C-alpha cells in the first residue's frame, strides 16, 4: 500500500509580499495537545513545528481565493456589535464604521507571485483514495481518537481540525519526503481550486520566480471575489497605498 503521487502543475501561484513571494520562513508553532478540535496552524503544517511549508495554487484564482476569504462578511456581526455596545454620541475620531465584506486597500500591498516547477518532482495527492487507504492503515490510533468507524476519505481530509491534517502532514513528510516535495490538495473553499503545500526541499524545484502587482481589476481576483461574495475597493482607492 502506498500514497498516490502526482506531477506538479507547470506553474504555481501565491499571494505574498513582493519581496518574498516564496519564503520558507520560520516553522509554525507545534500542534498543541488537546482533546477537542484544534485550529492552530495552517492545514498541512508540520505538527512538530520543525519545518516550514509554503502554500500555493495551481491558478491565480486559487491563490486569491485563499487570501481574501478572511474578509468575507459575517452575517449579523455589525448588528451584534451595535446591540452589545451603546454610545449616545459617537466620537467621529474613534468610531470607525467600515463597510463589511470588502477587501481592504492594504491587501493590495501584496503581489501575485508565481514560479515554474520542475516537472520531474512529485507530490502526494491527499484527495486520492489510494492515499486514504494508506492513511487508514497507518492511523488506527488517530481514527479511534476521532470516534469508532471513522475512515479517511475526501471529507475527513477536509476537516478543519488540525489534529488530523497536521498529523497527516507530519506522517507523510516523515515517510515520503524522499519521494515527494509536498502535498496536493483541494481547496476547502471551492472544489475546483487545486492547491499545493510545498515542503522545504521544494525550494530546489521552484524556479523562475517572479511577481506582478495586483489591483481590483486583476481578472482572477475579480473572479475569486465574485465567487466568495467579497467586494473589491474602487481602483482609485488603491493608488493611496502605492
Amino acid at each position: 500500500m502506498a500514497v498516490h503521487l502526482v506531477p506538479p502543475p507547470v506553474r504555481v501561484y501565491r499571494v505574498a509580499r513582493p519581496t518574498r513571494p516564496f519564503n520558507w520562513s520560520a516553522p509554525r508553532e507545534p500542534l498543541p495537545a488537546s482533546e477537542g478540535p484544534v485550529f492552530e496552524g495552517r492545514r498541512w503544517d508540520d505538527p512538530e513545528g520543525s519545518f516550514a511549508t509554503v502554500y500555493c495554487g495551481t491558478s491565480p484564482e486559487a491563490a486569491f481565493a485563499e487570501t481574501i476569504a478572511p474578509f468575507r462578511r459575517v452575517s449579523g456581526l455589525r448588528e451584534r456589535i451595535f446591540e452589545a455596545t451603546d454610545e449616545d454620541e459617537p466620537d467621529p475620531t474613534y468610531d470607525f464604521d467600515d463597510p463589511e465584506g470588502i477587501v481592504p486597500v492594504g491587501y493590495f500591498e501584496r503581489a501575485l507571485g508565481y514560479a515554474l516547477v520542475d516537472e520531474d518532482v512529485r507530490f502526494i495527492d491527499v484527495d486520492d483514495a489510494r492515499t486514504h487507504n494508506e492513511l487508514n492503515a497507518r492511523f488506527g490510533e488517530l481514527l479511534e481518537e476521532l470516534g469508532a468507524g471513522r475512515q479517511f476519505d475526501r471529507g475527513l481530509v477536509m476537516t478543519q481540525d488540525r489534529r488530523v491534517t497536521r498529523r497527516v502532514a507530519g506522517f507523510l513528510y516523515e515517510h515520503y519526503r524522499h519521494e515527494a516535495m509536498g502535498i496536493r490538495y483541494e481547496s476547502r473553499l471551492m472544489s475546483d481550486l487545486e492547491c499545493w503545500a510545498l515542503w522545504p526541499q521544494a525550494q530546489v524545484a521552484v524556479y523562475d520566480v517572479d511577481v506582478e502587482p495586483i489591483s481590483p481589476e486583476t481578472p482572477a481576483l475579480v473572479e475569486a471575489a465574485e465567487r466568495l461574495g467579497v467586494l473589491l475597493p474602487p481602483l482609485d482607492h488603491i493608488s493611496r497605498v502605492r
Partner: protein
Amino acid sequence: MSPTDLAHREATRTDFRQIAQELQEALGQRLVAYATGVRSPQAVGRWAAGKNEPRGADQGLRNLYRVFVILRETETDQTIRAWLKGANPQLAHQAPIELLREDPDAVPAVTDAAATFADA
C-alpha cells in the same frame, strides 16, 4: 522567539493606558469595547486617557492587543479592522473579534490565525 511569543511578551509588559491608546486609535472605541465585553465605547477613551483602569476587561484588552501587535507589523489599521470582523476560514469561519469576546480559550487560535495572515 516567534511573532506570537513576541506579541505575548509585549502585551504583558505594556501598560493599559498605552494599550488602550493604540487600540482606540487603530480599531476604534466601539470595536475595542465589543472585543473586551464592555458596553460603553467611551470607557475605552477613559482607559486611554488614564482616567480609569479596565477592571474586569484587562485580560480581554491584553488578548486583543496581542493580536493587534502581530498584525500591525505588516498591515494597515483598516486591514486589521477588516480582518478582525471577517469570516476566517482558519477559525471555522467565525470572526476573530467575536471569538476574542466570547471564548478566552480561542485566543491562541486567533493569534495563530493573525500570524498566518501577517506571514502571507
